[in-house]
């Protein structure tokens, strides 16, 4: 919010004026109202510590995060460039494999990971699009620039919170959105529906959203998206493969399904091909997919590109397929299978963050400066045992934003996850996205399962 010379940046002036008029009581009331709106509407995710599970809300912070239209333009173009290149990469990896033949990436980095889905080899997908829906995690470092932290190309989530946060802001800050000329995001579901529709040759394809069910922690999002797009929400048990097509079991008989937006991991998709113990998927769906009789969104096998090991090659990927310099840069990442890099990293543990290449949700990582000696020792042991399973990055100074915590405003670290959708007519990025907050003081961990919250994100029109 504040620039390096300690003045409130232009875009926040109006907001500061408005907020400074509110008393503590007003702010508490606004906070309570937002919590109540979330709980009443059932905008919850379930945490399973016991059999029943507790429903929690993803904490919402009242103070919006603002991005200027100039800052946004760079982010938008950067993400479009990145997704375009990554999509070419995935196609290449499952077909000619030119990037490997030209020595840019070694075969080990592709074939030895769990994320390479061999069933996708030579499988033709509509319009050659694999990453229809992507969430790219960005942070702003202490040089004021945005960097890409991570790509999420499999089943990225958070869109429903982005939409819900905007609805709540409209309730608790009436009129302010107009005054600030904030770009609307409410047409995201319609845009998504149209992009999905563009993948089929039919005029009126039957599109469904495949969910693991009510016990999945992101169920609220599946249900909301299905409702806002006007498509049927189905579970694996509602679908059946017959005569090389996928059908849904309706009360009056079977109805053909053309496009499936699936929020189920690759490994649970088809028990005949992947994990045979899965009851979430549909048996034989891959054979229908191979025949081209159903479209799967996102395509299986995208995990090969959001692997933390491939992350460090993305700048080269952009250069190789698009012949352009990356608009958005990566964070400098150390490859620990390289002994020199490993040595450097071990000598500077307190300045480093370690991550497992196949980890997610903030688990399996170590932040050097906030860990005990014993924790570090144990972690390093695991790293030395299997160095190619780990990467390291310098601890970042994430940008902060004022958050209303414990009845006063205090800085907390934030990140940004814009969402990009790709159809036969190109890539679109929703203005803003989800801003996640690390609610614990001094923490850098923003994930929902580990004490994270979110804010409404505004991209200005001018």
């Amino acid at each position: 919010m504040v620039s390096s010379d300690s003045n409130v940046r232009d875009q926040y002036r109006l907001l500061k004026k408005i907020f400074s008029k509110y008393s503590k009581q007003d702010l508490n009331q606004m906070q309570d109202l937002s919590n109540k709106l979330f709980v009443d509407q059932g905008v919850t995710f379930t945490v399973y510590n016991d059999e029943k599970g507790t429903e929690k809300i993803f904490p919402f912070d009242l103070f919006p995060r603002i991005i200027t239209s100039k800052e946004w333009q760079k982010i938008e173009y950067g993400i479009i460039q990145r997704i375009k290149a990554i999509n070419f990469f995935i196609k290449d990896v499952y077909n000619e494999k030119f990037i490997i033949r030209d020595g840019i990436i070694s075969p080990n980095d592709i074939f030895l990971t769990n994320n390479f889905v061999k069933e996708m080899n030579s499988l033709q997908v509509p319009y050659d699009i694999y990453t229809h829906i992507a969430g790219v995690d960005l942070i702003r470092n202490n040089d004021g620039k945005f960097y890409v932290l991570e790509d999420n190309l499999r089943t990225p989530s958070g869109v429903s919170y982005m939409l819900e946060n905007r609805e709540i802001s409209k309730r608790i800050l009436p009129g302010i959105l107009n005054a600030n000329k904030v770009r609307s995001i409410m047409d995201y579901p319609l845009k998504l529906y149209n992009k999905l529709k563009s993948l089929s040759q039919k005029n009126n394809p039957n599109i469904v959203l495949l969910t693991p069910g009510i016990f999945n922690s992101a169920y609220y999002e599946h249900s909301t998206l299905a409702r806002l797009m006007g498509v049927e929400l189905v579970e694996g048990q509602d679908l059946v493969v017959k005569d090389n097509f996928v059908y849904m079991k309706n009360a009056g008989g079977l109805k053909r399904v053309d496009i499936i937006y699936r929020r189920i991991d690759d490994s649970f998709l088809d028990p005949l091909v992947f994990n045979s113990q899965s009851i979430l998927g549909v048996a034989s769906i891959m054979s229908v997919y191979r025949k081209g009789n159903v479209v799967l969104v996102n395509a299986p096998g995208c995990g090969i590109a959001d692997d933390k090991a491939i992350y460090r090659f993305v700048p080269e990927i952009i250069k190789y397929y698009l012949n352009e310099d990356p608009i958005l840069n990566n964070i400098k990442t150390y490859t620990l299978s390289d002994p020199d890099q490993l040595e450097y990293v071990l000598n500077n543990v307190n300045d480093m963050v370690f991550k497992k290449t196949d980890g997610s949700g903030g688990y399996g990582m170590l932040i050097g400066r906030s860990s005990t000696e014993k924790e570090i020792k144990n972690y390093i042991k695991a790293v030395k045992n299997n160095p190619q399973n780990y990467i390291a990055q310098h601890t970042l100074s994430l940008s902060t934003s004022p958050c209303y915590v414990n009845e006063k405003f205090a800085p907390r670290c934030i990140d940004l996850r814009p969402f990009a959708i790709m159809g036969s007519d190109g890539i679109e990025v929703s203005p803003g996205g989800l801003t996640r907050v690390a609610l614990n003081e001094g923490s850098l961990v923003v994930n929902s399962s580990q004490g994270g919250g979110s804010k409404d994100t505004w991209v200005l029109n001018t």
Partner: protein
Amino acid sequence: MLSRVANNLFWMDRYMERTNGLLNQIKSNYISNREYGDSKSWKMIFESYFNIDEEYDAQFTNSEEIINYLIFDSNSGNSIINLVSSSRKNCRSVQEHVSKEIWININKYYLFVTSKIIRKKSKYKDPINLIEDLLTYNLLHYSNSDLTQERGNPYSFMNLGKYLERLSISVDFLLYRLLSDKIESDSIKENIFWKNLLLSIGGYQTYIKTYKSSFLTKNLVELILSNPDFPKSILYCLKKLKHHINRLNIFNGISLDNDVFYMISKLESNLKFTKSNQLKNDQLRDYLEEIKAEINSLSYKVNKTYFE
């Protein structure tokens, strides 16, 4: 519409209807206990809702404890807390098919009944206040369904569940309540008994208008079996069921001339052409048991036709 979704909508409303019926029974039973001054048996409730035959209420020391059990016991399938949780679970699975108002109300109902605050004795000294607050959510559900739910497939499946449950409740009421309760010979107590009985099924005003104040078993039987204007009567429920089955068959492309339709029509004729007010006690009991059995078969047939 997916069979699973249809099933969830059906049960969402069935559970809500059951909750409404049970709460009204509890309320009237408690009031009649207070008026009589002695601990009247809660047998009917335990028998029809919990399938328990023996003198279950003997283990509780007073009515308040029984009410606490009936509302809050998490182990029994038909306690209010479990019924509302089940209804909410079903609703959550089909959120996209019901209006937002319906979902929010059921969710709030669930949050209310599972909150720790309402169990505090200080909040609800009189159980009637708690029951009335709970019933408010049921009433809101009826109005939400009426006003905000569009008249499509989901609406008809909801009504299928609602009216089937109401049928079961009404027939059970006649079998367990009316024919089992010993009516007091004292005329004042007798009137209080009838009034509470009628209030528990929501039929007090209709009865008075139709039969004036002569309380007779045969009149009550006629009211609940075949009064076409009483919303809880079996004939009324059957009419509504027929209407919704017709719509469902059209929406889902099912033959109009199926078993479910046939069974409902048969039951309807049976009711229309039997002079129930001329049946003696034993004959009446047999007749009611026969109707109950037919309603059970109807439930089974509905399940087979739409949900499998």
